C-alpha cells in the first residue's frame, strides 16, 4: 500500500516538473498568445487588455500554481485561442491518437512476433538473415519518409485507403480502421524492427537455456516448447520496449498527424506551441506524462503477468546471475 502511495507521489512529482518545465520554457519564447489572438491589426493597448483578461500579466509562478490548483481539481483551463476547455479538447483528440498508437503497436507487435519466431527457430539461416535485412530496412525509414510513400502507394496509386483525414468509430468500424490503417502503419513500421530485434535475441538465448533442453528431453515438440516454455520468459524486453514505444507513439504522433491531417493530440500540441497557448500545452503535456506513468505501471503489471517470479515480493535469495541479467534487461 505504501508502495502504491510512493509511486503515486513520484508520478505526481514527475508530472508537476514536466508541466512546470514546459511553461517555463514557453515563457522564454517570444510572442504571446494575446498577440496571436488579436492578429495583425492588434494595438499594444488591446494586447495589454487581453493579457490582463487572461491573467498573463501575473508572475510565472502565480500563473503556474493557479493552473496547477485548478488542474488538481480536474479543470485544465480554457484555451484563449479557441475558447474551448482543454479537458474537452484532449478528450476529443485522445481517441484518434490513442487508436493510431494502439493500432501501430498491434500491427508492429504482431508482425514482429511472427518474424522473430521464424528468425529464432533457425538463427543465422537464410530466412533469418533475410528477415534481419528487411527489418533493418524498416528501422532506417523514418516516419516522414514512410508516410508520403505509403500515401503515394496506397492512397493515390491503389486508392485503397484515404490519403488523409479521420473517420471516427461512430461512422463504423470499417471506415474507421481504413482511415487509421495507413497512419498506424507509417508510425509502426519502425517499431517492427526494434521489436523483432529484442524478441529474436531473447528467444535465441532462452532457447539455449537448460529448461528448454529439459522440456525437449521430455519429448515435447519444438513448437510446443517454443510457445509454452520459451515465449513468455523471452518477452520481458519486448514488454519494456513496447511500453516505451507506446509512450513514444503517443507523444510522437506529431509527424503522422501532420502527414495525414488527423485531429489528434500531436496536432493540438504543435498548434498550441506555435500559438503560445500555454494552457493547452500544459494540459496536453500533463496528460502525456500521465499516460507515460500509466504505461510504466501497466508494463510493471505486465511483468507480473508474464513472469510469476516478479508477482510477489522478490525472494531474498536469488542467484546473482539471474539478478544481473534482469538488471541488464531493464
Amino acid at each position: 500500500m505504501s508502495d502504491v502511495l510512493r509511486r503515486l507521489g513520484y508520478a505526481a512529482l514527475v508530472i508537476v516538473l514536466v508541466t512546470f518545465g514546459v511553461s517555463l520554457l514557453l515563457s522564454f519564447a517570444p510572442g504571446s498568445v494575446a498577440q496571436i489572438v488579436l492578429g495583425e491589426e492588434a494595438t499594444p493597448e488591446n494586447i495589454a487588455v487581453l493579457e490582463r483578461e487572461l491573467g498573463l500579466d501575473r508572475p510565472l509562478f502565480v500563473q503556474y500554481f493557479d493552473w496547477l490548483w485548478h488542474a488538481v481539481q480536474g479543470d485544465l483551463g480554457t484555451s484563449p485561442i479557441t475558447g474551448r476547455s482543454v479537458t474537452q479538447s484532449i478528450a476529443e483528440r485522445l481517441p484518434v491518437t490513442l487508436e493510431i498508437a494502439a493500432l501501430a503497436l498491434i500491427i508492429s507487435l504482431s508482425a514482429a512476433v511472427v518474424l522473430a519466431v521464424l528468425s529464432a527457430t533457425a538463427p543465422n539461416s537464410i530466412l533469418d538473415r533475410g528477415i534481419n535485412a528487411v527489418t533493418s530496412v524498416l528501422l532506417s525509414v523514418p516516419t516522414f519518409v514512410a508516410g508520403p510513400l505509403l500515401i503515394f502507394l496506397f492512397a493515390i496509386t491503389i486508392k485503397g485507403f484515404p490519403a488523409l483525414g479521420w473517420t471516427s468509430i461512430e461512422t463504423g468500424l470499417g471506415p474507421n480502421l481504413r482511415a487509421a490503417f495507413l497512419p498506424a502503419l507509417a508510425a509502426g513500421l519502425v517499431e517492427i524492427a526494434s521489436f523483432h530485434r529484442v524478441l529474436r535475441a531473447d528467444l535465441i538465448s532462452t532457447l539455449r537455456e537448460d529448461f528448454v533442453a529439459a522440456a525437449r528431453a521430455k519429448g515435447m515438440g519444438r513448437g510446443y516448447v517454443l510457445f509454452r516454455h520459451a515465449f513468455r520468459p523471452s518477452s520481458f524486453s519486448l514488454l519494456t520496449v513496447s511500453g516505451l514505444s507506446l509512450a513514444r507513439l503517443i507523444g510522437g504522433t506529431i509527424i503522422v498527424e501532420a502527414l495525414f491531417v488527423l485531429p489528434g493530440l500531436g496536432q493540438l500540441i504543435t498548434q498550441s506551441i506555435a500559438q503560445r497557448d500555454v494552457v493547452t500545452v500544459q494540459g496536453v503535456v500533463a496528460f502525456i506524462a500521465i499516460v507515460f506513468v500509466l504505461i510504466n505501471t501497466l508494463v510493471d503489471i505486465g511483468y507480473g503477468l508474464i513472469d510469476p517470479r516478479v508477482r510477489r515480493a522478490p525472494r531474498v535469495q536469488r542467484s546473482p546471475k539471474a539478478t544481473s541479467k534482469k538488471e541488464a534487461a531493464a
Partner: protein
Amino acid sequence: AGGDTAASSGEPAGEPVSGGTLRALELAQPSGFDPVQVFSSTSMPITFTALYGQFLVPDTKTGQYDCGLCKSFTTTDQGATWEVVTREGLTFSDGTPFNAAAIKYNWDRMKDPKFGSASAGIANQIDHIEVVDEQTAKVVMAVPTPGFKGLMPIYSLQWIASPTALEKGQAEFNKNPIGAGPFLFDNWVPNGTLKLKKNPGYYDAPKPYLDALEIQGVSDNAQRLNALISGQADTILNSEASIFAEGESAGFKKVEYQFNGGVGLMLNNAKAPFNDVRARQALAYALDLNSLSDSITRGYPSAPKTLFTEGSPLYEDIPLATHDPDKAQKLFDELAAEGKPVNFSYTVFPGNGQLVFDALQSQLQKYKNVTVTPDQRDTSQQGVVGTKGDYQALTSSMAFVDPGSRLWGQLHGSAERTNYSRFNDPETSAALDAGFSDDPAKQKEQYKIVQERLSELHPYILYTAYLSGLLTTDKVHGAVVYGYTSPAAADLWLQP
C-alpha cells in the same frame, strides 16, 4: 472600382438540382465559429458562407457589391457614416430576429479587446453604432472611410451571429453556432470534419441546393490534391498554380480567379537598406521574377506584370518591374560605395518561406555587394512582424479585388496601422484619395498615377499572382469564384 471577372464552373450543366452531400476541403481548419475568433475570407469561405450567409454579394459584372443578408448598405457622406438596413422578418436559425440590434451587438463585440478579434483593427474604424429603428443601424466611422463597404467581405464583420446564442459564451456557441446562413451546424470535431445540414428556412429559397456539407481543412496543397485524387473529396480549394495544373491533368475541373496585385516581397521602407529607393530599385532590377515565380510555383510562373489584371477596367500596361542585371549591379555598387551595401535579411516563416528564400538567395548570389540572410520566425510571429516593422524584407500579399479598400490601406501614407511597408509617397497617397471617385475616367486616371509610382518606387516586388479557386469533380456545379468569400456555399450543387 472593379476586379477581375469571376470564374465559375459548370456553365453548361443546366438547371441546379437539389440534394446530395458535398465533401469539400478548405485551406484551413477553423478553431471556432464565433465571428470574433475567425479571419476566414479566403481560407474557409464555404464554411462561413454556409453558416452565416453572405452579408454583401459582389456583383462580378460590375465590380460593385449587392446586398445579401442586408437590405441596403449605403453612405451619403463619402464614408463618414453608413446606413445598414436589414431584411424584414429575417431571423437567425434559432428564431431570434436578424435586426439592427443584432448588427450592433456583433460589431461592438468585434471592437471589444476582451474578445481579441482579429478584425478588431477594422472594427475600431467604427466610432459607434446607433440603432435607428428595428431594421436600421447607423454606423458612424471614426474617420471617413469610403472603402468600408469593400472591406466588409475581407473581414469577419460580415459574419453576423445570433446575439442570443453568443450570450451563452464562446464554448457553448462553438458547440452550436447560430447564424442566418443557408446551412445549419450539425457536428464538428476540432481538426476533424465539420458537418452541416441544409437550413430549410433560408431566406433565398430554393437555395441552398445541397442537403449537407462535409468540410475539412487541410493546409497542405499537395495533400488536398491527394485527397481529391483518392476520392475523399468532391471539391478542394486551391491557391497554387502547380496544383491547378496537376489537378487538371488528373482530370478535374479547375475554377480559378486571379486577384489584382499579387504576392511578393514587401520591403521595409522605413529601415535601412530599403529606406533608400535605390536599394529597392536595385532589387527590382536584379530579380528575374519569372524564374523566381517558376521556383515557387513549381513550374507555373505567374509573376504579375502589371498591378491590375488585363480584364480590369483600371488596367494599364505599366510593368511593375523590369529585369536588368546590369542596372542592378550598378546600383548595388553605387550603394556599396556610399557605405550603404544592400545586406538584408528575409524573414522566413514555415511553409513556403524557405523556398522563396532559397530562390531569392540563389538569384542574388550572382551579384556583388548584395547579400540576403534568413531570419527564421515561427508562425506565432506572423502577425507581429508587419505591425512592429521588425523586418527588412518579408513575403506579403498586395492583392485586392477593388483597389479602394485594400490598396489604400496598404499604400496610403496616413493608413498607419495597415501600411506595413511604411511606404509614404505623397503623390501616391493623393492619387489613392482621389481614386474614390464615382467617375470611372477619373478613377482610371488616378490609378494610373498609382501604378506609375509603384513601378518607380517599388515598395513591393510582386513575384507571383494571388490565385484563389477550386478543383472539383465533374459533378460539382455552381462554384463561382470572385475573390474573397467565394465560392458561396448556397450556390453549390451536385449533379446526381
